[in-house]
């Protein structure tokens, strides 16, 4: 009985053309949709900046109508928004916007990720040079990577007011490196080879395997510079050799 009542109520809330749109019931409809759209605006400000507020709100309502949240954790709402954008016909000529949304999804993940203490350069001291290639890295839980065919990190920075908007003459592929330092999340651009290197380390491959994969993409891949970046930015939380922590 109560279940049937709530069925009807929910249909009325989510129906785009409700049969009985009394103003009092509409308060609930409005609360629900506004809260979904606001949650998406809060999570995807760069996408909103790229497409404009009016377009964004219309797209967000469209998404919300068929993708209402599945959990009370609104911080996770919109995990499937990048995919929706990718297949949203009005944006077919702007394929980079879905990747921009992927960066913003990753930012929330980084913001809420577990705390973990990074290791310093001294962690390498006990490793014999011959063992380096066998080393495995545990990367910080707040580290995320978004590989793109487009200069996605640069586009994100431009749409967040962190870089001067400019016409891009060519469109170099970038991987966005999303990381957290002092509780603040930042996005920087790394090369596709660098992205491949970090992704390999993140999926528990050895330093040797990861470096080989990166070099296969770009023969000028600079392993030392990338190791320096990892340690200087506090992105490594543990080194492991032969499955025993160092």
């Amino acid at each position, binding site marked *: 009985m*109560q279940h049937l*009542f709530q069925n009807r109520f929910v249909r009325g809330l989510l129906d785009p053309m409700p049969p009985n749109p009394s103003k009092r019931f509409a308060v*609930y409809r409005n609360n629900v949709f506004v*809260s979904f759209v606001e*949650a998406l605006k809060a999570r995807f400000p760069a996408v909103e900046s790229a497409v404009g507020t009016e377009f964004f709100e219309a797209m967000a309502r469209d998404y919300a109508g068929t993708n209402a949240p599945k959990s009370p954790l609104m911080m996770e709402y919109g995990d499937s928004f990048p995919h929706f954008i990718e297949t949203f016909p009005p944006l077919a000529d702007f394929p980079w916007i879905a990747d921009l949304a992927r960066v913003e999804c990753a930012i929330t993940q980084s913001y*809420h990720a577990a*705390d*973990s203490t990074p290791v310093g350069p001294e962690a390498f001291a006990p490793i014999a040079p011959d063992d380096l290639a066998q080393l495995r890295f545990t990367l910080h839980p707040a580290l995320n990577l978004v590989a793109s065919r487009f200069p996605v990190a640069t586009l994100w920075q431009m749409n967040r007011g962190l870089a001067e908007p400019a016409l891009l003459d060519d469109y170099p592929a970038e991987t966005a490196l999303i990381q957290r330092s002092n509780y603040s999340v930042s996005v920087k651009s790394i090369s596709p080879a660098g992205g491949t290197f970090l992704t390999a380390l993140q999926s528990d491959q050895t330093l040797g395997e990861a470096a080989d994969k990166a070099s296969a993409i770009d023969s000028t891949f600079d392993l030392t510079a990338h190791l320096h970046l990892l340690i200087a930015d506090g992105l490594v939380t543990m080194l492991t050799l032969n499955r025993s922590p160092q």
Partner: protein
Amino acid sequence: MIACHLPDCVGVGFKPQHFEGITEASGPLGFIEIHAENYMGAGGLPHAMLTRLRADYALSIHGVGLSIGGSGPLDREHLKRLKMLCDRYEPESFSEHLAWSTHDGTYLNDLLPLPYTEGTLRHIINHIDEVQSTLNRQMLLENPSTYISFAESTIPEAEFLLAIAERTGCGLLLDINNVFVSSTNHALDPRAYLDQFPLQYIGEIHLGGHTEDADEDGRMLLIDAHGSPTADPVWSLYAETIAKTGPIATLIEWDNDVPAWPLLRQETERAFSILEPARAQHAA
């Protein structure tokens, strides 16, 4: 009898943008309240701020997503997350709403109304028993703001809340703005509601702002928007309630169009000016 251990002080719903204001000059602040769901990530800034504030203030954890009035079973995963949060921060109070928000796995992110009948009463009592036994603590249940009412309701809301408190041992969170909003929307007298309300079960009071609208028949329709100062008639009802109950932990809620800290602090000072004399009198 009410196991709400909040001090009889003024609190605010904590917003990250007020972190510095609160840590620098908190004014009469005695506790903070957080929405549980915003602290269900694993780590990062939310937990760093909360841990810092927890060291100085009493804490109320206020859930908005458990859907106690939902027709289906409670979300066990969500209940587990609430338990983890309560175990981590050991709040002085945990509260939730007389409302529903999840249906068949869809979360509607709003506090939706339900009819008050013997059937829904039994159902809610079972849910509250489950919450209290899982969390191993007494909870407070908040009266909702509503825009519609149901022909099938047979029990007045205040009586419904009393029955829940008596049969589950939970306490009540009296939101006086909600009383004013619902009473106005249903053309009822908020004082009559408060006269019926079981004051002895109140563990905390909420105050917040609403906006004014009208329905299609031109009747006043108040929206519980939490985006403005508490309205004067709500302050009057608050003072009248405190005169009857003595001092009770009182929270200022301001969730939308969040103001700078000094303006919110003014609201806490206004509540303090009503609460403090009652506390002095109570102590005497």
